[in-house]
């Protein structure tokens, strides 16, 4: 029974993946990719990877979807959204088929699993959720660099602005009917999202959740509020927002350096301090992730003028 469920789910995932690559029109491809993220999130739920399911639902489906749809809208207005008729391309199909087959072969050729033994390490990690323990303690350096990757992408996106627009607020100038459905939605959703996002960060220490998932939820409701015209997007020149961007990485790096200065070692969390330290880092990181993700999706300042 359970295999039938997985088979049905995987058939849908594959079908949606195929639909997002086949056919004409990038709009349809983008819509399929949104549903794809949702189905893959269910797939992660089936695999028992609940933290990943949460991340995929929030990032893979939610934020990437808005990103793609907004990009499509901009391209359509620039008359660059049209796509030529898709033709079957044999060399590409051979390459794709070859890659798929080699991974299929690899799955059956893999030796017996040899996961690292975490039994002695987990009790010292400070948090009960093993995924959070890996992200914030065992492999904290990865997570720190990853939060910086987000930041680098944001600076890169800002570099796409026209020089004339540089001082303008980020993204497009969103507006909506003040008493309309969208505005009401933009007022109701953020408080709920705020509570849920904070809950996810707090709960992530012991169960499903974490800074990235919580930050994504906060970014998403912030985006809704901005698109509904409730909240005004910041400008690059606003120092408080830039401080919010770097807060998390600074706290993270600062705690790592404190460990080194106090003799424990770089990025080392003494067992007694591990839990409060992780929660502090996660709290700061959530703020930065939320702001960074929201601004990433918002895009560079764009006043809609023509390119000089």
């Amino acid at each position, binding site marked *: 029974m*359970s*295999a039938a469920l*997985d088979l049905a789910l*995987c058939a849908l*995932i594959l079908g949606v*993946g195929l639909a997002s*690559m086949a056919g004409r029109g*990038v709009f349809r*491809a983008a819509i399929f990719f949104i549903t794809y*993220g949702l189905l*893959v999130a269910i*797939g992660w739920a*089936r*695999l*028992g*990877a609940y933290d*990943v399911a949460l*991340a995929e639902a929030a990032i893979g489906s939610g*934020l*990437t979807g808005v*990103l*793609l749809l907004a*990009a499509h809208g901009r*391209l359509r207005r*620039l008359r*660059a959204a049209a*796509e030529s008729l*898709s033709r*079957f391309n044999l*060399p*590409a199909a051979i*390459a*794709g*088929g070859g*890659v*798929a*087959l080699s*991974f*299929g072969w690899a*799955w059956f050729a893999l030796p017996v699993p040899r*996961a*690292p033994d*975490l039994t002695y390490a987990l009790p010292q990690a400070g948090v009960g959720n093993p*995924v959070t323990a*890996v*992200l914030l303690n065992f*492999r904290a350096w990865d*997570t720190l660099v*990853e939060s910086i*990757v*987000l930041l680098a*992408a944001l600076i*890169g996106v800002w570099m*796409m602005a026209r020089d004339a627009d540089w001082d303008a607020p980020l993204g497009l100038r969103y507006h909506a009917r003040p008493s309309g459905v969208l505005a009401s939605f933009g007022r109701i959703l953020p408080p709920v999202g705020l509570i849920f996002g904070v809950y996810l960060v707090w709960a992530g220490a012991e169960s499903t959740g974490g800074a*990235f998932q919580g930050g994504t939820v906060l970014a998403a409701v912030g985006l809704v509020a901005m698109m509904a015209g409730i909240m005004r997007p910041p400008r690059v020149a606003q120092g408080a927002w830039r401080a919010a961007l770097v807060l998390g990485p600074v706290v993270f790096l600062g705690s790592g350096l404190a460990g080194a200065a106090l003799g424990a070692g770089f990025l080392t969390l003494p067992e007694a301090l591990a839990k409060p330290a992780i929660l502090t880092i996660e709290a700061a990181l959530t703020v930065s992730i939320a702001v960074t*993700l929201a601004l*990433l999706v918002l*895009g*560079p300042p764009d006043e809609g003028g023509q*390119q000089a």
Partner: protein
Amino acid sequence: MSLTIFALTGAALIGLGVYGLLARLHLLRRIIAFNLIGSGLFLFFGATGARGEILDPIPQALIITGIVVALSASALAVGLVVALAQGSGRASLPEDEDAEGRAP
């Protein structure tokens, strides 16, 4: 059984993404293709991490990191595509435009 289903789905998704990346020239489509490859890879990885008696948390943590990195790259790529279209009116690379332009 179920794990094999997920792993092979992941393998097929990687292949699909590779096909799309090579065969489709519109840059937004290529960005989706990258995401498909990444996601298929993660699905494969997730299946390998679930083979043992207890679920290995390290692949899960790596996958979450990977999802965030993929979003960063996608956002930068989307920004580039829009800026490119603003400057040139095209959303494909110059060397691909002939191929793209010939189509009806």
